């Protein structure tokens, strides 16, 4: 692929869709978490590609897209810490991390 905006957009769409497929098909809670990381990576790649290739407007600086990616990475770190804590607690109480077994809250 050539060095253009479209190649990067296609790669990030692939990351997003494969991440979504992982989230939809895995029953292992940690596998679902991996899919979410793929989705967030796709979004971050999109932001950086746009900030590199698009014509910057008068008000926004050239680096705004990179700042967004930085915040996405920080929030992904927070999310994975909390999610893993929940998974570990569920495992210690129910002895499984199969997401289809967690139906205590089902009405």
């Amino acid at each position, binding site marked *: 692929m050539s*060095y253009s905006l479209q190649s990067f957009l296609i790669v990030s769409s692939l990351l997003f869709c494969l991440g979504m497929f992982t989230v939809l098909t895995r029953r292992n809670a940690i596998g679902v978490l991996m899919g979410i990381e793929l989705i967030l990576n796709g979004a971050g790649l999109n932001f950086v*590609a746009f900030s590199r290739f698009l014509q910057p407007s008068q008000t926004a600086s050239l680096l705004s897209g990179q700042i967004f990616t930085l915040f996405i990475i920080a929030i992904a770190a927070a999310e994975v810490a909390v999610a893993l804590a929940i998974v570990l607690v569920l495992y210690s109480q129910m002895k499984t991390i199969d997401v289809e077994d967690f139906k205590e809250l089902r009405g």
Partner: protein
Amino acid sequence: MKEIVLNVFILLTVIPCLWVALSSNIVHAAFSLLVTFFGVAGLYVLLGADFIGVIQVIVYIGGILVLIIFGVMMTQRGKLLSLSVQLPGKLFAGLLCGIILTALIMAASRSLWPVAVSLVNPEPTSAAIGDLLLGKYLAAFEVVSVLLLVALVGAVLIVRRSVRGE
């Protein structure tokens, strides 16, 4: 030359990513995720975002991936948990993702993006990002730092409570 490097990093990103989605072994998926993150870091550097590339390696590979592998190893004593949904569900998910992927790729390639006429050569970004974080985006930066603190303390609290058996 640039195109070759770009294609190497694209392959390095997409092929392990397929393995993450399709592998039945969760440990293999975790290690493929490592290669994917590395490929994305390379793409960031090719886009002139050197600081984000380094942060990607430090936070994703050094932090998040270690946590995920730790979680994988903590939660499977004896047997490997290669759980995944049955075939009809998989086909449906594949169809849905395929449709969305086609739509996204069509939108990306057909739209008329306001692309800059001439690309400026990338410069080192660390200083400029630091200026922006402590100037224009100070409020968001502070909120994110409080969010990180709360999330980490909360994670410790959740696990601690269950260890005590309350």
